């Protein structure tokens, strides 16, 4: 079965990102397909590569990154939600004359149409808030 996940909360503030990560791993282990993981609202903070948790805490950015690299996952961050919260990749930082950027592949900044597409293309869209 084809799943997509919607992550709405900031990592380290709520449990949603960890739950989504565990759900994603379990999906893969059970032989399901993950069509897309879409980050919206404060969930966009998952894409920040500047997360620097203590050594004994989970680094969610790295977890998503390695999961994406090992399983060819589509990680899409809502561009409007990300820009206003200061989550930018190099291309957007250049476009808006910002001095720095903090996200990169495999996270991709794109529009809300990608959330709709995930909903249309997947059998189930599961929200983690």
């Amino acid at each position, binding site marked *: 079965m084809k799943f997509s996940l919607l992550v709405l909360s900031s990592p380290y503030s709520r*449990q949603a990102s960890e739950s989504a990560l*565990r759900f994603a791993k*379990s999906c893969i*282990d*059970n032989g399901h397909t993950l069509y897309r993981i879409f980050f919206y609202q404060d969930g966009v903070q998952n894409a920040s590569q500047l997360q620097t948790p203590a050594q004994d805490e989970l680094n969610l950015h790295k977890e998503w990154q390695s999961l994406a690299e090992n399983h060819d996952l589509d990680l899409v961050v809502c561009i409007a939600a990300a820009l206003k919260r200061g989550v930018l990749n190099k291309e957007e930082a250049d476009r808006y004359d910002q001095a720095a950027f903090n996200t990169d592949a495999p996270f991709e900044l794109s529009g809300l149409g990608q959330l709709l597409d995930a909903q249309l293309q997947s*059998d189930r*869209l599961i*929200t*983690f*808030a």
Partner: protein
Amino acid sequence: MTLHLIQRSPFTHQALSNCLKTLMPEDSILLMEDGVYSIQHPLLQDILTPAAQAKPTSIYALIDDVNARGLEAFNHTPILNISMAEFVEQCAQHKHVISWY
């Protein structure tokens, strides 16, 4: 036929109470994150009484969230503890999945 994911404590949020307002006969409820505290809330206990409905709603609790919070001893049938893998399968088996937060 919907699987309702309760993701907030019913003692501070309306997630469970709003969910129950729209619950249909074939639906199931899954308690996760702080939603597992629903185990101790009268709203949930009320719908578990045999007289409450002709066909009782299936209620699941994500076991990792239950155990993490020290609720293991409080959980009792008919609330069924399930694993993350079983959670995924429940999502697959229900037509819709709605998160309440």
